[in-house]
């Protein structure tokens, strides 16, 4: 049997890492779907109906899986982390309840109208429902990130004794719920979602463009895929550079507000100035390979660059080392490498965006097979970047579940048995593996069957408008 604390932590890590894929898909698709719907209603052009109907299928599937996997997380705070739920509940439960009422309800009810109601409701209500669904997905992120950012940089509370236990009580709601961290997190997360979806769209569309234009195979609805590719590239050109820009600001904020996490991101053990920025670092001993906290490292570094980055231009700036904290360092290697993979992917996406834009400008977008391949490979990489980014955030704050207030190991349900915890962990490993495989299989099926063919469309294509919009 696995120790209940370890099993609970592994289970939460697994369930949250699987869950995040689906909100990323739905939050990222939301602005696209609103735009497609508005354009469909406004212009009546069939391409927008195709776009809306095709991407709504992926959205609906992601939403359903997001609901069931999200519900698991909500209850895991109680089942596996009962001490956390008791200690933090007063501050943490509120945002979850508000997320349910303000965001999830909006999303789930109007999704019914959005998916099933095109022929049942007026154009106006249909557009409203698309906006409500999109707004719902983004408001969900607001409340979840308010709750999470409070755990990262807690304030606006006091510890009081209640029923014999030290628990958190709210003293200043504005301080607690509007932390600076929330702003950084929200911008970085939402932009990441749109960027991830843009990459996914571009990758899928590139596959068909490649088959049609490079391989010379006949592809149904090639115009649909060409348009999808262009839309995705526009979104990528906007989001990819922004992601790196505010990511940089976010990292500097972490250096100030969670110095231990930042030290782990950079693997800085000793406090000092002129801290080098390691591009890569490897253990030099065999034991070190299996020890995420090894200090026997060999790496390639830019001298003084970490100091320069963290201070915004001063190579002499001091960075606090992991040694200077009274708590044990988080598993440094995991945080260090996750951070590097995320940053590397961020720059790769910028390269991809500009490469695509350059080819498009020269009228060669459909001819560069190397670009098509790069886009295809990158289709899931936005999600990968989100995953490693969250690993930096959540593993990096260990051993704390609420920074400086409660340690993760102390937050697990007191009476939880190893057998029960192991049983559910094994269940989730099996169940979620199946879930991911099914999701991939169904997405593949949806993609292979492509958009609805023109004769299936219901949009009344107004030819007068067509002439006008096409100029």
């Amino acid at each position: 049997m696995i120790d209940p604390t370890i099993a609970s932590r592994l289970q939460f890590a697994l369930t949250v890492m699987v869950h995040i894929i689906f909100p990323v898909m739905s939050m990222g698709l939301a602005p696209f779907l609103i735009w497609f719907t508005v354009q469909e209603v406004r212009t009546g052009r069939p391409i927008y109906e195709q776009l809306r109907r095709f991407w709504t299928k992926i959205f609906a599937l992601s939403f359903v899986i997001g609901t069931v996997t999200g519900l698991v997380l909500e209850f895991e705070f109680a089942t596996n982390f009962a001490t956390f739920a008791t200690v933090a509940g007063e501050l943490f439960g509120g945002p979850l309840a508000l997320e349910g009422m303000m965001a999830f309800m909006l999303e789930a009810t109007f999704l019914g109208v959005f998916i099933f109601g095109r022929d049942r409701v007026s154009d106006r209500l249909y557009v409203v429902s698309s906006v409500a669904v999109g707004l719902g997905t983004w408001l969900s992120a607001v409340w979840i990130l308010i709750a999470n950012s409070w755990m990262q940089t807690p304030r606006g509370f006091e510890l009081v004794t209640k029923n014999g236990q030290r628990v958190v009580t709210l003293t200043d709601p504005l301080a607690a719920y509007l932390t600076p961290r929330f702003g950084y997190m929200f911008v970085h997360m939402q932009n990441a979602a749109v960027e991830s979806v843009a990459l996914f769209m571009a990758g899928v569309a590139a596959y068909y463009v490649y088959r049609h234009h490079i391989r010379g195979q006949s592809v149904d609805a090639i115009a649909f895929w060409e348009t999808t590719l262009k839309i995705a590239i526009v979104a990528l050109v906007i989001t990819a550079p922004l992601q790196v820009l505010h990511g940089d600001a976010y990292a500097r904020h972490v250096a100030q507000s969670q110095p231990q996490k930042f030290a782990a991101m950079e693997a800085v053990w000793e406090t000092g100035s002129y801290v080098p920025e390691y591009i890569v670092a490897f253990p030099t001993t065999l034991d070190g390979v299996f020890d995420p906290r090894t200090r026997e490292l060999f790496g390639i570094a830019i001298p003084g660059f970490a100091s320069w980055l963290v201070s915004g231009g001063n190579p002499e700036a001091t960075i606090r080392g992991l040694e200077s904290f009274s708590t044990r360092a988080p598993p440094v290697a995991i945080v260090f490498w996750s951070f590097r993979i995320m940053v590397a992917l961020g720059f790769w996406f910028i390269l991809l965006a500009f490469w695509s834009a350059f080819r498009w400008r020269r009228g060669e977008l459909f001819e560069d097979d190397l670009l098509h391949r790069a886009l295809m490979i990158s289709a899931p990489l936005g999600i990968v970047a989100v995953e490693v980014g969250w690993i930096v955030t959540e593993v990096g704050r260990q051993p704390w579940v609420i920074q400086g207030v409660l340690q993760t190991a102390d937050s697990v349900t007191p009476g939880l048995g190893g057998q029960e915890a192991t049983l559910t962990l094994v269940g989730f490993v099996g169940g979620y593996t199946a879930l991911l495989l099914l999701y991939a299989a169904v997405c593949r099926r949806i993609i292979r069957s492509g958009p609805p063919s023109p004769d299936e469309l219901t949009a009344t294509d107004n030819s007068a408008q067509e002439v006008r919009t096409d100029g």
Partner: protein
Amino acid sequence: MGEFGGLTSEWLFGLPLPTLWFGLVLFALGAFLLLDGFDFGIGVLFATGSKSERERLLAVIGPFWDGNEVWLVVFGGLLFAAFPSAYASLFSRYYLLTFGILAGLGLRGLAPELYEQRDDVRWRRLWGGAFVVGSTLTPFLFGLLLVNWVTGATATLTLHGVFGGLALLAFCVLDGVAFCQLKTPGPLAVRMRVHGLRAGIAYLALLLVSLAVSGVDLQSLVVLGCVFASVLLIGTYSWALRRDRPVGAFVAVGGVALVLLVLFGGLAFPYIDRGAGLTIQDAFISPLMANLMTIATAFLLPLVLSYFVVLYSAFSGPIESEESYG
């Protein structure tokens, strides 16, 4: 602290907030049972349908079930927000039961999506079966949890809990039958009626047995009153079904759900979690947070209800024959 004035020290307008929030949590629970209840019931009835009937049954719940399920999210959220220690003690005590419910809900949510993906016999048998299992397991386990919760049982599997779980399953079936009468009048609905009548009898019998073996005081006013009201309402339901009065049947089901909540609240009071010895007053959050949440909820709850009005009126009346799940 002065900036928040009286909000930090006393309940908003002197209202009895702990009790009000207990009621609010029960309201969300009731909305979940009544609304998702017919989704579960239709999931159970799905087992009895032919291929085309199955398609129709899925179309009946298609636009609604997701929104209905969110009442469970809201129920959990409100309980967590208002009574965090009870939320923690309750679901950690019934650890496996909670994950069983989540697994059931996962299966129920996923299965119809997958069912619609492919039109081959084995695939449809698999996911149709998964849909039935998820729709059966979830209310059964949820009923077991509710009965354990209200009686403060420390074991997961109790006799009165099992009867309570079966009673909730029967409730979902009668709920599903009533909703079918509203949404798909015709031979299918007529064929469903016999299931509704049986489920009504079963519900009453199982509820009585569960109460009898649970050791609660059967002669208390709340138990007697609720049993009596349930008998009347199930009678009304059966009468409405036979007389082809779908609205009447559904209203009667709503009444049954309301009585169930009153019974639950009456048996639980003054505890929010009897098993952990936590009263509603003990487990409630401090005044500042409680007041803010009360204000927020007072604005949000009417809004949420208006979403449901939009949803249910957009899809009001019987489904059209060409409407399908996909």
